[in-house]
C-alpha cells in the first residue's frame, strides 16, 4: 500500500476527528455571532459567539480549541461576515475592536490548558476556568483599544468591558453547565 509515495503513515483517526470538530466549532463560533437574544438588564444583547469560544476550549482542549478559533479568525479575514455585527476583513482585526478577537485565541488556549491539567468535574471549577478565559478576552480587548484608539484605561473599560459584563457572565454560566454535563 502506497501513501502518496511518501513514508509517512496516515494520520491517526483521532487527529482527523479532532480536526473536523475544530472546523465545526469554528463554524459554530461564526454562526454564534448571529444568534442574538436581548436581555432586559443588559445594555447589549447576548450572543452565542463567546459562548462557543469557551466551549471550544473546554471540549477540544488547548491545541484544537486554539486552532478552531484561529480558523474562525481566518474565515473573517477572507471576507466571510462572521465577526460581531456581520463585520469582516483584516481591518476589523487591526482596528480598535480587534483585540477581543485576538483574545479569543488566548482564551481558548488558557481554558483548554487549565482544563487539561485539572480535569474539573464540578460546575464551580469549570466556571472558574472559563472566567479566567473571559478575563483574558477583556485584557486583550482593552489593551488593543487603548493602543489603537489612543484611549485611557478608564475610557477603554467604559466602552469595551462594562456594558458586556452581565451578558458575558450569563455565557460563562451556560458554558460551565454544558461542560459539566457533556463531553465530545
Amino acid at each position: 500500500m502506497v501513501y502518496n509515495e511518501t513514508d509517512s503513515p496516515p494520520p491517526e483517526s483521532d487527529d482527523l476527528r479532532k480536526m473536523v470538530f475544530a472546523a465545526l466549532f469554528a463554524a459554530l463560533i461564526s454562526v454564534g455571532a448571529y444568534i442574538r437574544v436581548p436581555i432586559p438588564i443588559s445594555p447589549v444583547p447576548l450572543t452565542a459567539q463567546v459562548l462557543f469560544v469557551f466551549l471550544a476550549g473546554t471540549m477540544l482542549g488547548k491545541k484544537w480549541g486554539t486552532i478552531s478559533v484561529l480558523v474562525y479568525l481566518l474565515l473573517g479575514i477572507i471576507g466571510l461576515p462572521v465577526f460581531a455585527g456581520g463585520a469582516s476583513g483584516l481591518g476589523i482585526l487591526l482596528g480598535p475592536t480587534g483585540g477581543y478577537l485576538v483574545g479569543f485565541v488566548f482564551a481558548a488556549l488558557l481554558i483548554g490548558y487549565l482544563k487539561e491539567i485539572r480535569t474539573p468535574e464540578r460546575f464551580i471549577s469549570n466556571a472558574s476556568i472559563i472566567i479566567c478565559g473571559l478575563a483574558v478576552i477583556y485584557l486583550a480587548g482593552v489593551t488593543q483599544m487603548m493602543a489603537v484608539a489612543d484611549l485611557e484605561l478608564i475610557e477603554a473599560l467604559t466602552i469595551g468591558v462594562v456594558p458586556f459584563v452581565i451578558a458575558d457572565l450569563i455565557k460563562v454560566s451556560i458554558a460551565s453547565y454544558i461542560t459539566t454535563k457533556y463531553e465530545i
Partner: protein
Amino acid sequence: MTNLFFSYFPGDSFLHRLDPRTKIISLICISIAVFAAGIPEHFATLVILFMICSYISGTGFRAFWHSLKPMMIFFPLIFFMQLFLTQGDLIFSIGPLKPTYEGLELGLTVVTRFVLLILFATILTATTRPSMITNGLERLFRPLPLKAAGITSHDLAAMMSLSIRFIPMFFENARQIREAQISRGMDPRHNILRAVSSISVPLIISSIRDADDLTMAMQSRCYQGISRTYLHELEMNGIDWAVLICVPAILIFVVLY
C-alpha cells in the same frame, strides 16, 4: 444563504486577476502604512491610493457601506471620547463639556485610520473569492513551522473550507428543526426557553453526527494533510511581482515623507 458571501463582487478587473498572495501581502503592507501615517499628507496619499484601487476594481459604494456599517457605532463613540477627554487648548466650554483642538485632531486621526483599514480590507475581499484567499493563505503559511503545532497548512486550509461548508448547513438544519417543532405544536413566542432548547439541542447533536460521518468519509478517501495537490493551482505572473515591488515602495514613501 447567498447573503453570506456578499463580500465578493464578480468582475474581471486588473485587481480581480491578481494572484491572491499578492493582494494579501499588499494589504498587510498598506495596513502597516495606515498605522505609520500621522499627518494629513500621509492620509491624503492613502485616500488617493484607495480611490485608485476602488476605481480599478469597480467596487461600488454598497460594498464599502456594508463593511463600515457594523462598526458605525464605534466611529462617533471613539471620536467624541477623544474630543472631550483629551487635555489641551479649549475650542469652547459648555458646563462639563470641554472639547479641545488636540482632542479633535486625535479623534479624526484614529477614526480615519480605522476607516482606511476597513476600506482596504474590503477591496481585498470584494475582488477575491473566499476559496482563492484560502488558497493564498495556505501557500503563505506553508513555510511556517506549523509542524510544531502538529498540523500543516493543508490542514488549516481544509478546516477553513469545512467551516465554510458547515455554516450554511447550520442555517438549513436550524430552519428544518424549527419548522418540525412548530408543526408539533411548539410556540416560539410563548415559551422562549423551551423553544431555544428544543431547537439547539437537536441542532448540536445532528451537527456532531455529521462531523463524525465526515471524519469517516475523509479517512476512507485517504485524506492525510500532506503532499496535496489542488484543483486550481496559483501562479505568480510578472505583473504580480511588479505590484509586490510597488506597494512596499509606497509604504516607504508614506513613512519617510
